[in-house]
């Protein structure tokens, strides 16, 4: 890894020396070098994809509160941002989310636990819902996502919970059990809050790739 980084430095130096990388606005060669290297280092991989599954439903409401008062289930908040691979905000994204109820069943007749969020300039989103149950044929708790944004590749993915009994307290070891979860990165740490009642929270930023 360190060798690769050294080699990248050399190549970058070569590029500047040969005029293959030039400054678009006035800056010193040292600044050009540093800025390029820094920006490249910040670029992130797009969020890993997951299967769409059979229960996506078009036309869900633009509402960040998915549950109703008195719904059974562990209260859950999901917060996140929609970013590009350089970590910049992507305004104008649409985020479809859908998940099973506390018993693991999807509402296929209506739009319970389904939303299509229109994300504004802030590129941030919040969901207030309950912890999904275990759908018996796919027994890891998950929230489905489909994210579209102008100029970016549509991403279909899922968020999982590190506390899920399915991972037996060891998501690093057990995430790939039965081939259900494609990538450890999609399993999120659960934060617990107490504000009158308990509420779980996960962060799920979404990184989209440019097309």
């Amino acid at each position, binding site marked *: 890894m360190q060798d690769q980084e050294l080699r990248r430095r050399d190549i970058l130096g070569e590029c500047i020396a040969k005029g293959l990388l030039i400054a678009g606005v006035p800056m010193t060669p040292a600044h050009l070098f540093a800025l390029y290297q820094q920006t490249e280092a910040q670029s992130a991989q*797009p969020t*890993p*994809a997951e*299967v*769409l*599954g*059979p*229960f*996506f*439903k*078009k*036309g869900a409401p633009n509402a960040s509160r998915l549950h109703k008062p008195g719904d059974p289930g562990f209260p859950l908040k999901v917060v996140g941002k929609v970013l590009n691979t350089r970590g910049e905000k992507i305004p104008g994204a649409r985020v479809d989310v859908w998940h099973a109820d506390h018993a693991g*069943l*999807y509402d*296929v*007749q209506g739009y319970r636990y389904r939303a299509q969020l229109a994300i504004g300039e802030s590129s941030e989103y919040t969901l207030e819902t309950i912890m999904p149950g275990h759908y*018996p*044929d796919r027994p890891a708790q998950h929230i489905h996502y489909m994210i579209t944004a102008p100029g970016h*590749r*549509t*991403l*279909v993915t899922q968020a999982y919970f590190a506390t899920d009994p399915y991972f037996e307290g060891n998501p690093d070891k057990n995430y790939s059990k039965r081939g259900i979860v*494609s990538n450890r990165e999609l399993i999120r740490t659960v934060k617990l809050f107490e504000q009158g009642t308990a509420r779980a929270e996960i962060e799920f930023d979404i990184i989209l790739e440019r097309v």
Partner: protein
Amino acid sequence: MSRSIPSDAQVLTLKFLDDGKALAGGCTDAKVRIWDFKSGSLQQTVAKDQAKHPLTSLLSRMAWTNASGLEAMPRMPNRQTGENFVHILDGSGKEKFKLAAGIGGISVIGFSPDGRTVAAGSYDTDLRLWNVSNGELLRRVDELTVSMFAMSFSPDGKWLATAGVDRIVYLWDTATWRIARKLTGQPEMISALDFSPDGKRLVTGGFSELTAGHPVKILVWDLASGKPTLTFDAPRQVTATAFSPDGKWVAAAFREKQIAVHAVA
């Protein structure tokens, strides 16, 4: 009257052969078994690499048409992009067209009876129709809000029946690709569908929202009234249904080591 045909492997797909004298089933061990329909005795077991059309389509999710000898094969080459393609292959296996078909996987695919049109439903809930002679997208139908799991063209090609998550059978007019009728009454999601040979009836098989292992119903519908006329029990998700060519029987597979056969005349 009902009977069952025993199988030594679980059966997933079904097709009547030889004017209904034989019934072929694609099994979970990647072999096609062919039974004498009347006696229920096993005639032949065909391994995947030995299978020829139309048996090959019983072992994969591709479609084949004897009208033009073409194959339609769904593919998702890259999991990260999730993009679906339908490859149209000629009789020698040479690719004619690679058709972009939405995202998330192809849930169902089939040819029109004249072999000129291929229809594919995607888990993004859209239905796409292509002219297979030039690869032209004839229509992207985006009216459905949920996925379809099963489709069947009427034998005269005038109707396409689709059904899936919302328990409704949609009858599409293939001249306009508008919904002509909706049939409701299946108590579960619908995962299998077949027109009768005279085009006057339909058979549908259920898929419980609870799990694939929950019991469901098989319904036979009269299209004149739009009502189910016969109901049979199935022990778990129905993966395939087929009318016999004389219209007197319906066979159903449900991932078990037997095929159910019901008299429907």
